[in-house]
């Protein structure tokens, strides 16, 4: 089993995870992530189980709540928790560039 991920593999998983990585971190992750991925490979050594899956260990009955209007969080307070906000809006940088706009 190889000991390191390639630079490209690290950049790929960082992209999937939406995490920026520095050059120094890439080198560390090449080894550390490989170690964890080697660990999970052990799943392929397990034999004898059937195809049934268990997504959550939840077999008890539960009651769905009545479908009616209930308590709501105060929208003002929700907005105030956003790092950048203005009035009733959460602010984000431009998502569609002006040149690409309609």
């Amino acid at each position, binding site marked *: 089993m190889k000991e390191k991920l390639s630079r490209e593999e690290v950049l790929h998983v960082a992209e999937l995870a939406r995490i920026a990585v520095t050059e120094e971190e890439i080198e560390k992750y090449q080894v550390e992530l490989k170690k*964890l991925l080697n660990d999970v490979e052990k799943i392929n050594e397990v034999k*004898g189980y059937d195809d*049934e899956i268990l997504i959550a*260990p*939840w077999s008890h009955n539960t009651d769905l709540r009545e479908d009616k209007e209930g308590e709501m969080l105060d929208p003002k307070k*929700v907005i105030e928790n956003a*790092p950048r906000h203005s009035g009733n809006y959460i602010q984000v940088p431009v998502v569609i560039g002006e040149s690409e706009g309609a």
Partner: protein
Amino acid sequence: MKYLDKSIIEINKLLKEKKIKPIDLVEEAYENIESSDLNAYITLTKEEAYQKAKELEDKEVDSLLFGLPIAVKDNICTKGVLTTCASHMLDNFVPIYDATVVEKINNANMIIIGKTNMDEFAMGSSSRTSYFGAPHNPWDTNKISGGSSGGSASTIAARDVLFALGSDTGGSIRQPASYTGIVGMKPTYGRVSRYGLIAFASSLDQIGPMTKNVYENALLLNVISGHDDKDLTSANKEEDFTRLIGKDVKGMKIAIPNFFVSDIVDKEIIAKLKETVKVLEKLGATVDYVDMKYLDNAVTLYQIIAMGEASSNLARFDGIRYGHSKENPEDIKDVYFGTRAEGFGKEVKRRIMVGSYLLSGENAREYFYKALSIRDDMKQEFTNIFKDYDFVIGPTTTTTAYLLTDPMDDPSKSFMDDVLVIPVNMAGIPGLNMPIGFDKNHMPIGMQIIANSFEEAKIYQLASALEKELNLELNPNAGGDNND
């Protein structure tokens, strides 16, 4: 003063007779916390606690838990009180609602005195991944108190307060309870509402009580359990968890899986477990050693399922709606990528990256689906064993607490610390840690008692019988000869 050293019955009597007030208990708790200096708390809620204590002065003392201080793990939302998950990502996050368990604690007239330290986003086994530095073990302050509920374990072990809440995704209540010599229960999945618990791995997470003894543990589970409209997975079952405490355990059948006493566990711990088995037999229980399949695969399953679920759950931390956000981002991508690079610590980033990879494209079938299949068989294995036995027991940890300065460079280490406690989360069944003695350095050794779903009361029955028989001195401040 030292009212908190008295039994809960005595404290209750004093409160009822108005010989003391809740504010005396709050004051004592803060004195304890400030003098013990264990870094067990991220936030102390003094103002709120004193105010609540004042309010309670005019109320009738209507339960055993009335007016008693409680510590809450910092991944449980408290309205108007900083809730950080021990992460830079949330070090400015003030929730606008209470978790259901917090509502229940407030309704029971308990007093929250602070938010406890933990591994960042509950990811770790020593609480050393906390953005705020690790809590210390009161039995030896150079040692870890375990994780991820390390702060809750530490403050209970030190006798700062009587009650704390933890959360357990892969052993995070039971393992620190073992390292610090306290009682910690991971209830059945669905027993306690997860509404307001900041999600790590939703199919494994469960909130539970951490206390110095079995009876108080059962009392706290009475308060926090029950159905919640806000958590679809919460079970519609109510019961008194103290009801079997004090009852005979004669004839109860106990199984010890051979894996739990294999060479991965320190000899000293196995020896202590075997001494405890003799005590259980003296109490009239029978103990058999059994083979159980898949237990040795639990860490692998956990790595796949917990990291996969975490990568999905933690996608919400995007720098837009709450929490940390990168200053002056270049564009929207920089908001996401930059915020997450700055906000998350090393352990969390590693787990999100591996989890994202495991869920991407074909890998979902290759790893995640396979893990869920084996998980089903593991659950079946427990179901089968409980046809013949009342309990499964074993050591909670493979070693006792280690040094805070031990290396952290092996990314697999924190998973291996939880090798004996993870199967319980996989199967969704209840498990409790209780202290059974000490190692040669006088560090606590813990044993876990596992039972079938919704059999917490039976676990408390066995645990209290054993606790009474062992009669250990479990106060690290007690000094003098310890009853080893």
